[in-house]
């Protein structure tokens, strides 16, 4: 047989065999068709179209016209909001995702270690997650108002500095991070479930070996939680890449410039510090009707999320311990 392959001669398939293979292929494709249809229609088509439109001038009214790399040059070199928005988005990805994971894990560990009344704490910490984003943001803008907010009143009475929060470019992102951490109840619940799944014998064995609480956390808890940490990191990155509602609402309400229907409003108040890439997609695509340039930003977002996801999955081998 080896000799036959080496000499290039192959046994010829009979017509019956070829027909059977064709039938198998059709059957397999038929079974796969829902996935193929869904992926083609809702993933590949919009993806390819978005990339294509990024090389066209398209206002939604007239047919797209090929313009080469003009949109890319405009967005990357001339559109003054792009780089600040990219920097802000990366800041939110790094800081908010990290903070949410750390706080969610600490809260989860704290709540399961509470002997009495843990359900009360679980409810208290989880409830903020259920608040609608717009309502939660409005509440935070009110609470953190530098002029009339109760938080600064308390800080003032304690003799502490009173930040400008959503009205100060230096504090607006930390204020949004605070809001994101306040709604960390989803991660807390997931971490609680994962923590309860860690085999008790591992802790007992480590304890017999003389491991203290820190070493038990590092060598037992963390490795067991690795898939969940990976899940939290990747879904967090994707959520931050789509971060739109909270910074938009906070910026507009704090600025006082709500704007009327159709009016372009200052993006990213104060001083562009809360501007994110998804806001640019809206600004370019639906306020300036420059859909080609909006697609450039959408493609950048897509590539960035792919890079982050690939990095996290390769470096951490996170999902279900793949690569271990």
């Amino acid at each position: 047989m080896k000799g036959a392959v080496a000499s290039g001669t192959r046994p010829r398939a009979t017509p019956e065999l070829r027909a059977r293979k064709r039938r198998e292929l059709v059957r397999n494709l038929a079974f796969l068709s829902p996935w193929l249809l869904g992926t083609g229609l809702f993933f590949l088509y919009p993806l390819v179209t978005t990339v294509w439109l990024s090389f066209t001038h398209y206002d939604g009214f007239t047919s797209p016209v090929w313009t080469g790399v003009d949109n890319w040059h405009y967005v990357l070199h001339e559109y003054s909001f792009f780089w600040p928005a990219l920097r802000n988005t990366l800041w939110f990805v790094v800081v908010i995702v990290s903070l949410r994971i750390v706080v969610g894990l600490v809260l989860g560990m704290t709540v399961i270690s509470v002997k009495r009344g843990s359900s009360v704490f679980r409810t208290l910490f989880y409830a903020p997650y259920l608040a609608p984003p717009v309502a939660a943001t409005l509440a935070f803008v009110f609470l953190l108002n530098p002029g009339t907010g109760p938080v600064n009143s308390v800080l003032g009475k304690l003799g502490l500095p009173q930040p400008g929060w959503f009205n100060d470019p230096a504090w607006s992102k930390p204020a949004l991070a605070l809001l994101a951490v306040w709604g960390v109840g989803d991660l807390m619940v997931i971490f609680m479930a994962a923590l309860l799944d860690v085999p008790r014998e591992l802790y007992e064995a480590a304890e017999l070996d003389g491991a203290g609480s820190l070493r038990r956390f590092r060598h037992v808890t963390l490795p067991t939680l690795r898939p969940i940490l990976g899940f939290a990191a990747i879904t967090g990155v994707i959520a931050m890449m789509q971060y739109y509602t909270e910074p938009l609402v906070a910026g507009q309400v704090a600025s006082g410039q709500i704007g009327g229907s159709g009016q372009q409003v200052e993006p990213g108040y104060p001083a562009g510090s809360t501007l994110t890439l998804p806001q640019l997609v809206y600004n370019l695509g639906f306020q300036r009707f420059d859909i080609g340039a909006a697609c450039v930003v959408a493609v950048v977002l897509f590539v960035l999320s792919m890079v982050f996801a690939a990095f996290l999955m390769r470096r951490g081998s996170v999902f279900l311990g793949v690569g271990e």
Partner: protein
Amino acid sequence: MTTPSRLTRRLAAGGALTALALSVTGCFGSSKGGANDNPNADVTITFWHGWSAPSEVAAIQATIDGFEKKYPNVHVKAVGNITDDKINQALRAGGPNAPDVVSSFTTDNVGEFCTSHAFVDLNPFMKKSGVDPVKVFPAAQREYTQFEGNQCALPLLSDAYGLYYNKADFKAAGITSPPKTYSEFDADAVKLTKMSGDTYSQLGFMPLYHGYESTITHFAAQASPTYFTSDGKSNVANDPPLASTYEWQKALVGKLGGYARLDKYRTTFGDEFSNNNPFMTGQVAMAMDGEWRGGMIDDSNSKVDYGVAPFPVPDDQADQYGKGYITGTIVGIASTSQKQNAAWEFVQYLTTDTDAVVNFANAIHNVPSTNAALASPKLDQSPAFQTFIKIAQNQYSNTTPSSPNGGAYQLTLQNLGYAYESGKQTDLQAGLEEAAHTIDTDIAQAQ
């Protein structure tokens, strides 16, 4: 090696973003309409508008009723509470449920509607009906409803901006009449300002660009700027009235306590369109605002005893005192409409029938948008409202011109204002040159 399942997971990680991309890309083209319909046929046209308050909806319905009485063969299906986002989607999509006649509260998108031909050019319709826009509409209203000669919209009532002042505060400060020039205004604003520790118990005027209607384009109208050259290029770096407006505002910020103090005080203001508006609560003694504010104060429980006057002008333009910034609601015919002749009958009635315009203006406390209606004795004759009528009639009143990318250039100028008033930008001329470059680049990108 990448396994298929791993690849799938990676692809799935971007799925949500692809949905975002889908939302951006999910709209291609639109069907074209035409003006070949029989205007005498019995038809129903769809009219989209933004009014939502019960009194406003009743007022526009009364206008529609008047039209249907006059043109019994044309029926109007009105759809209210429509925003520009919905308008843009509908104009792109076309189809049987798309509107025939569309009104928008902002003038910012007229350039976009004209250049993209989302709205039809009304010049042929006006010519056919004998409507001379120069005779019918004031200059500012004509300016903000056309782009490069394409009159793709017409004005449907207007807004005029002036000075609101608190009479009691004026009396307490010994001010006997409203200021007419910037130097008088600055002196009055300082006189009316009362400090309380490191903040204010009363502020004469909030000059910051985030102070609601205190935007650079509203201020600049008092100096009559020229935003674009005749060939459509940005003129902002070479326009003394605009530069002097930035400088005047910056100087006033300094006279009233500086940016940081004013900005902190600004955060104590209530919502602009609520009864907690700072002028209505007495936090500021003077404010720049539109004619609608008077109606809001009258309808509220505010105790403020207010007066209105034209907003002051630069000292070197004292002879032009009485002018102001003009904007308003616009109305046009969707190019996808199959009933454009019938739609034109309706648009013509809405925008040029003097009684219809006057009645509608009186009902919703807006300024009429035709010369005949502005001069009508049937208009609300209250002194406050008549002040705004005179501002709208003033030959020097002006507006922000249309641009192919909406209000993007105004946003660029406003951003320069934020940077300049806060001290982030110290070289005004350099900032204006950068703004001019940005405006030109943005417009080139849009075309």
